[in-house]
């Protein structure tokens, strides 16, 4: 089954992901792509405890996620793939065949030094903006949407500051 949603969220596993999206979409498989978490048993255990028992979670590096992507899509459960930053999603998109990931959900990229605010929950550095434009240039639809009930905001509107107009 195709992965239902590819999300960038710097909180990784948290309420919006597990409950806000996970429940209405019936997510049964959560793939967290993060090189640091994939290398740390302690980090994995930390996030695993936040996942309900009916949801399976896999922790993968970008390289493993590229290699295992066909396995994830072959899984009969509805899937969600999440990265903690734009750069990781960009590497994943670049590692997969063109058109494999058609849409990326900008779910939470919060304030940090060097970032400027574009939406209530989206702050970007110039490099992150370039990375998003790069993915869009490869045919990936980038849409900001923190929760399912929110209006999807296309990347052009996010970058133009029209996301919450």
């Amino acid at each position: 089954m195709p992965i239902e949603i590819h999300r960038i969220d710097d909180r990784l596993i948290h309420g919006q992901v597990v409950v806000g999206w996970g429940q209405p979409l019936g997510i049964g498989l959560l793939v967290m792509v993060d090189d640091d978490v994939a290398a740390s048993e302690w980090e994995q255990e930390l996030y695993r405890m936040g996942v309900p028992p009916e949801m399976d979670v896999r922790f993968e590096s970008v390289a493993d996620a590229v290699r295992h992507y066909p396995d994830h899509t072959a899984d009969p459960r509805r899937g969600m793939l999440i990265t903690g930053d734009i750069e990781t999603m960009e590497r994943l998109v670049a590692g997969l065949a063109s058109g494999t990931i058609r849409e990326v959900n900008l779910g939470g990229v919060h304030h940090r030094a060097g970032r400027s605010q574009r939406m209530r929950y989206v702050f970007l550095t110039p490099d992150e903006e370039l990375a998003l434009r790069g993915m869009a240039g490869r045919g990936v639809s980038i849409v900001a949407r923190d929760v399912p009930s929110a209006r999807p905001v296309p990347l052009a509107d996010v970058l133009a500051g029209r996301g919450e107009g």
Partner: protein
Amino acid sequence: MSSGRDAAGGAGDTGAGRAVARAIVAGHGDVAAGLVSAVAQITGRGDVFLPLSNRELSADDLERVLRDLVETTGVRVIFTDLPAGSCTIAARRLLRGRPDLVLVTGANVAALLDFVFHGEHQLPDEQAAGHAADKGRASVLVVAGSAAPAAGGMPDRSRGGGDAH
């Protein structure tokens, strides 16, 4: 108080410069402020808790704010709303290497009330936290509706309230 950015200096300060807070309550949206408000309304002891919202905070910022609160106030107990939430993840990061800290997740009003009354001068805060968790868990009940009573089974209050004064 609802924003994590202005969390320090909340309900735990009496205004006379003496911090009396014994626990942090952290959660989504305004739930922490709401829970503390309920405790204050019921007992007048909202000052026992420091409310903290995760609203618009990155995982790193939330952990930093929470760590600052713990270090500046000396509280050793953290209540959070959702086991899968970012507040819980941040709190669990703080707990690593800190055996003096205690986390209670899934907190509700009953748990906080119990902490107020069964902690101070009776139990060390970490034990009071365990007691509060038991109380909060036990307070979640399902009460089914029942069939309407047979005629004559209830006092007739339609003519001025019966014997209620």
